[in-house]
């Protein structure tokens, strides 16, 4: 393969457009928001960038740190569940026949064709008190109760709908539902490249299925697992629609607080400081991870 250093002009020509695009529409606006985080409101529409750290000081108060901590644990739990559910799914797609594989992948990607908001409303229709989930469970319960009565046992007590919506369970459920494809696709990409003969060798040499997955498949798929974890964790940490629409009274995450600063509170400097704290945290996480990978490689 050719090294880009030998073809500098070609490389520059190809990369100029995306680089310009990124700097005009990403780096510069983000820089402006970064500057806002060192400013304060003067009047209703003006922000004076005075170099103050007051916004960061306020963002580091226990109130906001606790919300950060809660958001991180919600995102971490979401990622963990996605990994546990997504790994077998990715494995199943890898070992499916070539005829089935594109259809299974399509099924994973299909939800992306629908707007997140529509999917969330659909989930609400399933989970609410009078929703499909509770209605089906209630029907099963009543039939079980009737069957017991028929056999001469005492019938079950009356069915109480489960509180599936407007609590923290609903938020985690919604986030897992939305982010599962983000986990499955990188896992599939990693598992697909795996040399299948290694698995056969492991099984031939007497290792069980569990041991093979643990000691052969998982380490080889580690880069895929890692990118799946990051690509799931980062958007889950910044989720605001799901906690807003499906959460209960105590389900706010840090992104909800940030949204309110930019809208109702009209406090852009403080909202900018909160967003950048979130970004710093994400950067540090990714940097630590890449440092570890480098150390292992070197």
């Amino acid at each position: 393969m050719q090294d880009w250093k030998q073809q500098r002009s070609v490389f520059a020509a190809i990369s100029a457009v995306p680089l310009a695009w990124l700097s005009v529409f990403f780096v510069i606006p983000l820089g402006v928001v970064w500057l806002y985080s060192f400013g304060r409101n003067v009047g209703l529409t003006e922000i004076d960038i005075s170099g103050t750290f007051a916004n960061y000081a306020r963002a580091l108060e226990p109130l906001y740190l606790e919300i950060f901590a809660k958001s991180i644990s919600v995102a971490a739990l979401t990622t963990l569940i996605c990994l546990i559910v997504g790994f077998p799914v990715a494995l199943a797609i890898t070992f499916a026949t070539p005829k089935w594989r594109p259809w299974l992948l399509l099924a994973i990607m299909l939800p992306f064709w629908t707007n997140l908001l529509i999917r969330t409303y659909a989930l609400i229709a399933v989970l609410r008190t009078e929703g499909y989930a509770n209605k089906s469970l209630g029907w099963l319960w009543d039939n079980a109760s009737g069957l017991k009565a028929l056999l001469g046992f005492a019938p079950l007590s009356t069915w109480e709908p489960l509180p599936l919506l407007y609590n923290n369970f609903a938020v985690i459920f919604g986030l897992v539902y939305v982010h599962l494809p983000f986990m499955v696709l990188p896992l599939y990409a990693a598992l697909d490249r795996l040399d299948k003969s290694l698995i056969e060798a492991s099984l031939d040499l007497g290792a069980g299925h569990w041991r093979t997955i643990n000691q052969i498949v998982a380490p080889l798929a580690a880069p895929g697992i890692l990118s799946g974890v990051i690509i799931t964790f980062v958007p889950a940490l910044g989720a605001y629609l799901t906690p807003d629409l499906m959460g209960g009274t105590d389900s706010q995450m840090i992104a909800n607080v940030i949204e309110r600063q930019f809208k109702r509170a009209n406090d852009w400097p403080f909202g900018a400081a909160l967003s950048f704290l979130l970004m710093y945290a994400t950067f540090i996480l990714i940097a630590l991870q890449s440092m570890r990978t480098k150390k292992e490689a070197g």
Partner: protein
Amino acid sequence: MSDLAAFQKSLANRRALLKGMGAAAIGISFGGLAGCDSKSESGAKIAGTGEEPKLNFYNWDTYIGETSLDDFKGASGIDVNMSLFATNDELFAKLRAGNPGFDVIVPSNDFVERMVKSDMLIPLDHSKIPNFKNAGETFKDVAYDPGRAHSMPYTWLVLGIGYRKSKVKPAPDSWKVIFDSDQYKGRIALLSEAGDLFRLSAKYLGHSVNNMPPAMIKQIEAMLIKQKPFVKSFHEDNGQDLLLSGEVDLVLEYNGDIAQIMKEDDDIGFVLPKEGSQLNSDNLCIPKGAPHPENAHAFINYLLGAEAGKKITETILYPTPNDAAKALMSDDYRNNPAIFPTAAQLAKCEYAAYNDKLQPLYEEAFTRVRAA
């Protein structure tokens, strides 16, 4: 079936849906404007107002009569290009950095105040809006816009309690049932607007919605933290859906939203609590830098007409401040106590003045309530 209907209804909710699709809505409105600009260069026709026959109208979703824009075109020859916004914040944010080409906008009362303070609105020429005479007496001069210098009344709303009659007995008459009582534990949904929650709580405590002292914000914060375990959710202005689907039995909502579902379900009621409440009003305004100010005046005048007002009201079912239009409406609408509370009840209601010092305090206190 009722589930499906409720689901479709929740999709149609003008605020909730567009809020989430903010990005998409921005795309639509910019696209619309760009198309309008390119056409205007070739258009050589002149409307009766002396301007090219175009108008850019920035409105809430489902907030105009079905044929209003076509009727206006028939009457004046002016083409109205309507784009939609979902929240006042979105409207304000878009005009904050300069008007991208809108002629008529529909901000709520506190945002009229805020935009006047930020010098974002054109003073209206009342001689060009003779239909202003149709407005009800209480809407001719309002505290948020003295002398109606910058705004014309379009609709008004009042916050109250929507409830399910068969489950809530006796009918509530005080804010106490939703702010300070465990009687209907787990069956209450409150609006997730920090400002509205704190102002109405102050009303419950016997204070005005304005000029709240900081000590009272603390007191209300403690009251809401105590109330929180009994509240099922803080809703995004979709309280009518939660009530209609049986998710909760009591919601804090606007009367117009509850009036819409009362048509579908006889078991729904609405009360304006005895302590009084907060009024809101949406207004027609012309932002600074509007490309067609003459057309804008003509359009506002048209919307304030009796017949046009009637057609709008028939579609959106919100209380109308237009007395001439109200007179043309059916008895069903005019005598609906949810849409038109009695004068004695309304006398206890107030508009909330915009206060840029208090708003961040409400927000932070509400963040603490939710984190507690």
